[in-house]
C-alpha cells in the first residue's frame, strides 16, 4: 500500500474515531451539555482561539481534498501497452482500446452491452469482454462474429501481428423490448404481404 493511501486512511480513521468518541461520550453523559457549552463559549469569544480554529479547519479541509485527489489519481492511473522506438517510448492507453471496442460493437443491434477489459500478457494481448445479448440470437454465431471483429480492430489499430486472444463471457440474455418485438412482427407481416405480389391477378 502506498504511503499516501496509508496516511489518508489514518487521517480519516482519526477523524471518524474522534466524532464517534464524541457522540458516545455525549450519549453516555460522559460529557455534559454544560461542559460543551462552556468550551464553545470560550472558543466563540477568544479571538486567538477562533483564529486557531479557522486555521486548523482549513488545514483539515485542504488535507481532505489533497488525499481525495491523490487516491482517485492513483486509481485512475492508466494501464498501457508500451513499445520502444529509437526516438523514445510509445505507450498506448488500454482504456482507449477498450473504448474503441465498445464503439465498434455498439453498431451491432443484437448486443445490448459490452464491457471489455484488456491485459497485455506474455502470451499476447488478452481481451476479455463481458457481454449482454438480446434474446433470439445464436450465441455461437454472434460470439464468433464478435471475436473476429474485435481481433481485426485491435490488430488494425496496433498494427501488430502479435497474438490477440479474445475471451467472451455472455453474462446475461435480455428479452427484446416490446417496441422492438412489434417492429419485428410488423416487418414479418410486411414481408409476408410482399411475398405474394400477383395474388388474385386475372386478365
Amino acid at each position, binding site marked *: 500500500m502506498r504511503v499516501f493511501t496509508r496516511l489518508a486512511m489514518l487521517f480519516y480513521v482519526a477523524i471518524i474515531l474522534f466524532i464517534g468518541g464524541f457522540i458516545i461520550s455525549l450519549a453516555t453523559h460522559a460529557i455534559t451539555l454544560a461542559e460543551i457549552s462552556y468550551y464553545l463559549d470560550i472558543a466563540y469569544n477568544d479571538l486567538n482561539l477562533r483564529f486557531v480554529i479557522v486555521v486548523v479547519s482549513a488545514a483539515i479541509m485542504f488535507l481532505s481534498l489533497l488525499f481525495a485527489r491523490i487516491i482517485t489519481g492513483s486509481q485512475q492511473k*492508466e494501464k*498501457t501497452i508500451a*513499445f520502444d*522506438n529509437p*526516438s*523514445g*517510448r*510509445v*505507450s*498506448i*492507453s488500454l482504456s*482507449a*482500446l477498450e*473504448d*474503441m471496442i465498445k*464503439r*465498434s460493437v*455498439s*453498431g451491432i443491434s443484437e448486443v445490448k452491452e459490452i464491457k471489455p477489459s484488456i491485459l497485455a500478457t506474455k502470451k499476447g494481448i488478452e481481451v476479455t469482454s463481458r457481454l449482454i445479448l438480446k434474446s433470439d440470437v445464436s450465441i455461437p454465431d454472434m460470439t464468433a462474429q464478435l471475436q473476429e471483429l474485435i481481433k481485426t*480492430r485491435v490488430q*488494425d*489499430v*496496433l*498494427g*501488430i501481428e502479435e497474438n490477440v486472444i479474445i475471451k467472451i463471457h455472455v453474462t446475461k440474455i435480455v428479452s427484446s423490448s416490446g417496441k422492438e418485438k412489434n417492429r419485428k412482427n410488423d416487418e414479418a407481416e410486411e414481408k409476408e404481404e410482399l411475398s405474394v405480389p400477383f395474388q388474385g391477378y386475372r386478365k
Partner: protein
Amino acid sequence: MKQDQKVDYGSIQIHKKVLADIVLSVVHEAGGIILASENFIGSLLKVLRKRNHSGIIVTIDKDNEVSIEVRICVQYGVNIPDASRQLQDAIRDAIDRTTDINLKDVHINIQGIEGGA
C-alpha cells in the same frame, strides 16, 4: 524552465513553450492525429483561443538534455506504430531544425482512438 545555449556573443535561452509550440505545429500537420486536451484548463484555453500545451510536456534534466512527451488521440485506421514513429521523427527533426537542440527522448502517449464505430 529554459534551455540555455552559449554562443560567442552571449547566451540564447529558449523557453519550454517555444518547444511545445513547435511540437504543436508538427502534431497539427500530421494526419490522423490530434492532441489530447483532456483537462479542464486545456478546454478553457481552447475556448479562450489560447495555445493549448496541456498534452505536451517538455522536461529538461540536470544534464540540460531535453525530453518531450506528447499525449495524443489517433483516428481509427491509423497504424499506431508507424504513425508514432513518423511523429517522433518529425518532432525530432523540427526541433533540431528550428532550435538546434538534440532531443534525448520523444515519448508518445496514445490516450484515445477516435471513430471506428
